């Protein structure tokens, strides 16, 4: 499965405190339909030449719903016209703040095969919201309106919760807030990633993140059937206890040849952060095939990382199979080099050793099948 992160627009109607997209890409470019047409031509070309592959198109931003339902209808037409024989191997996901989601998107999303939407929420005031003041009341009301439409039309949804310094004040209250809002607990707890000094007030350390997760884990473990889908708990349970490795792009060590970010002008890179930092750039789809982009020699440095780390910084670590050194972009942000482990490895290791294993009574044995 190849994931295309389609940054169809860099414009956003929110000004989230911890987001880099709007901060770095003030222009708010959107992808012209001619570029989207090129994307679809490249997707079709790739799928024809790789009959085993499938494409997951993740509509990302910015806020992709700013493009409006007409844009998605145009995408649907392009897909039908340009990928007539391959469209059964194309799936769509959307990452949206939901504030613009209304009835006008319902039919076209259904036709694109979208059954669930990814979103994000923060109960902390003024973390998410439009304008300089980050009007969280307006954001939250828009979010709830979107949620009504989602529920009315039977879409599933999951959300990202960004753990910041403010989350550390009341971890359990935050956890229950999120599990009440999303009853299945379909959310990801992600540590905030801050790369500048101006926003250090919300940054957290790996150890703080481990302790935050640990505080929640005891409650989650006791009631894991009540809210089963909280991440990273679900994935670790599956990987450690059920012995079914369930790892996302950050931990799988397999993003090398399977991820590509497409910017509004058609230029490609490894992922959203790589695009923000102008690294791991693979050229424009107007000039190169998707297959070539996915085989770009520059990707080899990510593959090499998977050979170097187990012999070096990660040598002897019994959690290698669970994190593979973490996200290479995290390593780059600290060392300007990919051949290091992520600083967030310590969060994972600390959480598993200090909380997961003692609470569950199950010790992760990397050699056990």
């Amino acid at each position: 499965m190849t994931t295309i992160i389609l940054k169809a627009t860099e414009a956003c109607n929110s000004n989230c405190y911890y987001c880099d997209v709007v901060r770095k890409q003030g222009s708010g470019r959107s992808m012209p339909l001619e570029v989207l047409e090129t994307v679809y031509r490249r997707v079709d070309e790739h799928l024809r030449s790789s009959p085993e592959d499938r494409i997951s198109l993740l509509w990302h931003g910015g806020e992709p719903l700013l493009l409006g339902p007409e844009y998605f209808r145009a995408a649907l037409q392009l897909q039908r016209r340009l990928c007539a024989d391959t469209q059964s191997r194309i799936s769509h996901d959307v990452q949206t703040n939901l504030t613009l989601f209304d009835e006008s998107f319902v039919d076209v999303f259904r036709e694109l095969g979208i059954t669930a939407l990814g979103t994000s929420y923060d109960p902390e005031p003024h973390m998410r919201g439009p304008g300089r003041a980050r009007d969280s009341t307006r954001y939250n009301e828009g979010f709830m309106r979107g949620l009504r439409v989602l529920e009315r039309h039977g879409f599933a949804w999951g959300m990202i919760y960004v753990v910041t310094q403010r989350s550390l004040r009341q971890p359990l209250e935050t956890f229950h807030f999120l599990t009440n809002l999303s009853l299945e607990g379909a959310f990801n707890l992600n540590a905030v990633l801050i790369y500048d000094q101006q926003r250090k007030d919300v940054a957290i350390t790996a150890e703080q993140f481990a302790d935050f997760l640990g505080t929640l884990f005891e409650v989650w473990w006791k009631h894991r059937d009540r809210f089963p889908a909280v991440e990273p708990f679900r994935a670790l349970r599956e990987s450690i206890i059920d012995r079914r490795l369930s790892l996302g792009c950050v931990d799988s060590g397999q993003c090398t040849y399977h991820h590509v970010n497409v910017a509004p002008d058609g230029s490609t890179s490894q992922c959203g952060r790589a695009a923000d930092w102008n690294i791991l750039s693979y050229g424009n789809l107007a000039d190169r095939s998707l297959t070539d982009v996915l085989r770009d020699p520059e990707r080899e440095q990510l593959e090499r990382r998977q050979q170097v780390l187990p012999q070096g910084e990660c040598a002897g670590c019994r959690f290698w199979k669970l994190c593979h050194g973490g996200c290479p972009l995290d390593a780059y942000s600290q060392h300007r080099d990919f051949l290091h482990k992520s600083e967030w490895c310590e969060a994972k290791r600390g959480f598993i050793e200090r909380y997961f294993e003692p609470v569950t009574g199950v010790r992760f044995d990397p050699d056990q099948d």
Partner: protein
Amino acid sequence: MTSHALVVPHDQDLLRRLKGQTVVVRTDDPASVATILTDTDRHDLRLRGIWLKAGGALANVEVDESWRRCRVALEVDVMGSYRVLRRRLGLLSGLRTRVYLSTREPENVTNVRVLASLGVACAVVIEQPVDWDALADLATYALLGLRSRGSIEPMHYLARNYVARHRTDFGAIYFDDPKNLLHVDDQGRVALSHRELLRGDVVLQSVDELSGLECVEAYQERIYGWQRHFLDADACACCPGWRICLGRYLGSGSSGCASFFEELLDLVEQYQARRGQGRLG
């Protein structure tokens, strides 16, 4: 015609207007049950039940065989003399009648347990003052006790209907369920709850306007009223028991509801797990 059931007074003119509709008929006269059955038949109404606000003591309510024909929600103030009540227990436990007792009278929680142990279906009306600990004991008895008996609501409602991935609203037990039940006065005006009807706070001026209910803002706000807890980030939003109470007791001056509903949620899950394992009689 609406998919909602309508809670209506026993009023001939109104019943005539509602032909074909599903109704719950509200009355305070136990002697009118037989007449209500006849009237709803005559007007071709689907009678879901009778909401009988009798008041007084259960022991003093004259129950008769005609009650067998429909569900009766019988609201009384107290249980009354057991010696008197004992003579009617055989009949009462064989009917589709549920006895409602309020927590306003402290002994009612115990009396619900007594009645349920004798096979009478009961419901606790949770209103101030509430002894939450006593209610938690009752919930444990209701859901984890092994002897067969009458159901106790809202505990058994939750045990039957709770699904982790959905919000579970037990308001239907108390006819407070605007998604499915609307309240109508003798003028045909429609409110979202009985309390609002009594205040004259109506959303439609006539039952003839029911087809437009979905467009009424107050209706939509009520259906999605649960969202308000998250927008206000009030205490209910981060309560571990919220998914089964939905903030029903916020602002009622209640304290202790959070730990009660957290415990009740655990009990409901235990009940369902045991039922799944076939360990309940």
